[in-house]
């Protein structure tokens, strides 16, 4: 009997090891035996864009960094090498094509250290900014326990994505909502609760994160040092879209037609007019993306293991940041911290305590939006929450901090449609609605493989970029003949043209004329204000050359 058991265990281990990504170790065949270089962490992907991605990994011994990559698994024709000898490897692949799958392996100058013979180590570059296509993001809050709860939540998502009838196996990004490694976000805790758990996904999907309070125990946002800041590499100079923040504590990025704003609700000053607030306001007011999603750790609405009515960080984020984000068209707010799943109605303008929420209040900005804003947001029930070009208000707030543990709480926040003390993670999927718009759907997948909640926000009229359909820029006074690069001015019959002035995009006077037909061939492309002065009046028109 014992022998049989041993045999079964051996067989299971053999099968398991075959199913894993192959890791090649360089073992010298000459004597004396040299120390073997082993990959201890990664590879994992950071700051992916349409043209570049950062590949990071750790080795047990200091060595050079080599990434071989290519679009065919068996022919990784390109490589990027860094001769710097290090244990912490960080290689930026640039000049990539958008929306393209690149297989890769990692190694040193002597050879490959880690590869996937089955093709499970790859990066699919982001689509060009503004592209409307299917996008799937896996959202994990407070995951970092490193225990079986976390594994069960992970496996439920893996099962979901593997059996999804459409876009099977596709995960465009992982969004971590902080507290990625308990109890203090130390390096060894990250190894156990982050890299060891999500290893397979991290080598084919770009991971983004915000700082959680537990990460913050070992990370220092003031110095941008510590494990959290060492492990992650986020864009500080707007490399992935958005406005440069100058810090990894808060930043933004674009993916397809979605703009993501990542805030630090833990260490960084949360006041209106503070550096982070000013950055976020300017960042959101500069995006032209169809969808805007923000993530930060501390939830603005929760009655889970934390209380958004009593805790300062939560109140400050709600009172200071939410009015500004809502005024600029935020669609989805993702938080963690409370170890539960709490999902709101379709909200706008509710910045008070739980007991001041009134779901029937739809005037003067909120608290809910639209005729079904107080409904469940399900397409097959109360209907999707709706945003149009005219009705731009409304966002769903999700506190989803149960990817590693649950901690109960009253779970009775009035702004929440549903509150669950349930392990799980969320998946966000953006897809065509078949009518020229898009659906943003979020599902909560429990550790038992059940979809315990889902909702959809629908946006109409996203099929084409606005500029594509703009008519010729002619007015009653100004007509532009682009083939002749000539501007024709027509004034009223009883008026006489005296002068035409051209002001460029920074308001500088760049051309004057007294003619009715004016050559603009020497003016550079851009926006102009054309001031038309007659003997009776002064008119202003605009023209885009």
């Amino acid at each position, binding site marked *: 009997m014992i022998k049989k058991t041993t045999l079964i265990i051996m067989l299971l281990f053999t099968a398991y090891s075959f199913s894993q990504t192959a890791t090649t170790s360089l073992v010298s065949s000459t004597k004396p035996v040299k120390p073997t270089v082993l990959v201890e962490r990664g590879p994992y992907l950071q700051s992916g864009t349409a043209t570049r991605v950062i590949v990071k990994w750790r080795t047990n011994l200091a060595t050079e960094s080599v990434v071989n990559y290519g679009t065919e698994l068996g022919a990784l024709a390109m490589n990027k090498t860094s001769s710097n000898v290090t244990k912490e490897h960080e290689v930026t692949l640039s000049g990539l094509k958008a929306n393209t799958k690149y297989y890769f392996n990692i190694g040193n100058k002597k050879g490959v250290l880690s590869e996937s013979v089955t093709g499970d180590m790859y990066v699919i570059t982001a689509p060009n900014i503004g592209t409307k296509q299917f996008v799937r993001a896996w959202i994990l809050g407070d995951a970092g326990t490193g225990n079986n709860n976390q594994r069960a939540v992970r496996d439920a998502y893996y099962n979901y994505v593997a059996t999804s009838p459409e876009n099977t196996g596709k995960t465009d990004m992982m969004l971590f909502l902080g507290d990625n490694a*308990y*109890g203090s976000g130390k390096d060894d805790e990250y190894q156990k609760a982050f890299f060891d758990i999500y290893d397979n996904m991290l080598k084919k999907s770009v991971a983004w994160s915000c700082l959680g309070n537990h990460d913050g*125990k070992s990370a220092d*946002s*003031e*110095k*941008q*040092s510590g494990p959290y*800041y060492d492990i992650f590499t986020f864009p*500080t*100079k707007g490399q992935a879209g958005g*406005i*440069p*923040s*100058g*810090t990894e*504590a808060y930043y933004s990025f674009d993916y397809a037609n979605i703009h993501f704003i990542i805030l630090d609700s833990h260490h*960084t*000053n949360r006041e209106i007019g503070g*550096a982070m607030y*000013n*950055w976020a306001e*300017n*960042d959101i*007011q*500069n*995006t*032209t993306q*169809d969808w805007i999603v923000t993530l930060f750790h501390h939830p603005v609405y929760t009655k889970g*293991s934390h209380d958004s009515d009593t805790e300062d960080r939560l109140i400050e984020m709600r009172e200071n940041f939410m009015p500004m984000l*809502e*005024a*600029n*068209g935020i669609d989805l707010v993702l938080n963690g911290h409370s*170890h539960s799943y709490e999902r709101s109605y379709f909200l706008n303008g509710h910045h008070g305590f739980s007991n001041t929420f009134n779901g029937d209040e739809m005037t003067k*900005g909120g608290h809910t939006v639209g005729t079904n804003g107080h409904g469940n947001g399900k397409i097959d029930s109360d209907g999707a929450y709706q*945003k149009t*070009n*005219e*009705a*731009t*208000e409304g966002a769903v707030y999700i506190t989803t901090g149960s990817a590693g*543990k*649950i*901690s*109960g709480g009253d779970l009775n926040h009035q702004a929440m449609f549903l509150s669950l003390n349930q392990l799980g993670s969320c998946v966000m999927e953006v897809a065509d609605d078949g009518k020229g718009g898009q659906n943003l759907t979020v599902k909560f997948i429990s550790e038992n493989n059940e979809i315990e909640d889902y909702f959809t926000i629908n*946006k109409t*009229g996203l099929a084409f*970029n*606005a*500029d594509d359909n703009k008519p010729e820029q002619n007015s009653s006074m100004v007509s532009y003949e682009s083939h002749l690069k000539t501007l024709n001015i027509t004034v009223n019959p009883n008026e006489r043209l005296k002068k035409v002035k051209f*002001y460029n*995009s*920074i*308001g500088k006077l760049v051309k004057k004329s007294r003619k009715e037909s004016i050559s603009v061939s020497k003016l550079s492309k851009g*926006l102009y*204000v054309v001031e038309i002065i007659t003997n009776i009046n002064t008119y*202003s028109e*605009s023209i*885009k050359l």
Partner: protein
Amino acid sequence: MCNKKYIANNIKNLLLITAFLLLAIPVFAHGDLSIQIAEKTKAITKSPNNFELYYERGLLYQQHVEYNKALNDYIKSESLGNTNNDLKYSMAEVYYLSEDYNKALKFISNYLEIDSINVKAKKLEAQILFNLKAYKKSLKAYRYVINQMVDTRPEDILEYSNIILAENPNNYHDALEAIDYGLKQLGLNTLSLQLKKLEYLEASNQVKKVLEQYNYFILQYKRKEFWYYKKAKYLQKINKPKDANIALQLAAISIEQLDAKFKNTNSIIRLQTQIKNLETTLN
């Protein structure tokens, strides 16, 4: 038989412990800091003269924002013979957080006597001195921080420039130099520093440079409507109504060219009202 009973009892105990742990996990799942404090308290009960334990519990209290308790533990740790320099830093930090700046200064000075080049300590010293309105000394300490710091943040540069102006409210030259230094360190387009530069240029009446700075934002941004309006407001302020009108027109055109979904956001609706109001004032 006896053995069987023993095994059965053990299994029973094991099940009871497992059941207790299963029940306890959700209860203790979040408050790990409180648990750590409780554990440390237990350890202190066993070794009441161990100054390390008091110091460690003090750190936990400090993380838990219980500054008085943290301070009591630090003082106790010191009285038991803890002469470690880290204790002095922690005491300085807690006094600073409790807004007792004189005591904070005393302890950070003690710390710096032993480790005069610690950047974190120098920064705390600068912040304490700032709150004591000893701006010249604060500036000197912060200058050291800026020169030695490896990972500078925008907030550090902003704090430094703020101290420069506290020391001399007219010293926009040095404050702007600090901002430029930050831009070189962190990236030329770092927003919060560019915004501060604009603020300082305006405050120091450097009209030409202010307009250049507005133009920087206009050229840098994809969406320009907010910046055209801000520029128009400034032009009105410096009595250039014609230029302000042009900027307002450009703002209106920029809004017109926006994708429809942005035109109806509350921020744009508010901006349109502001544009109209300013137009009325100008004309």
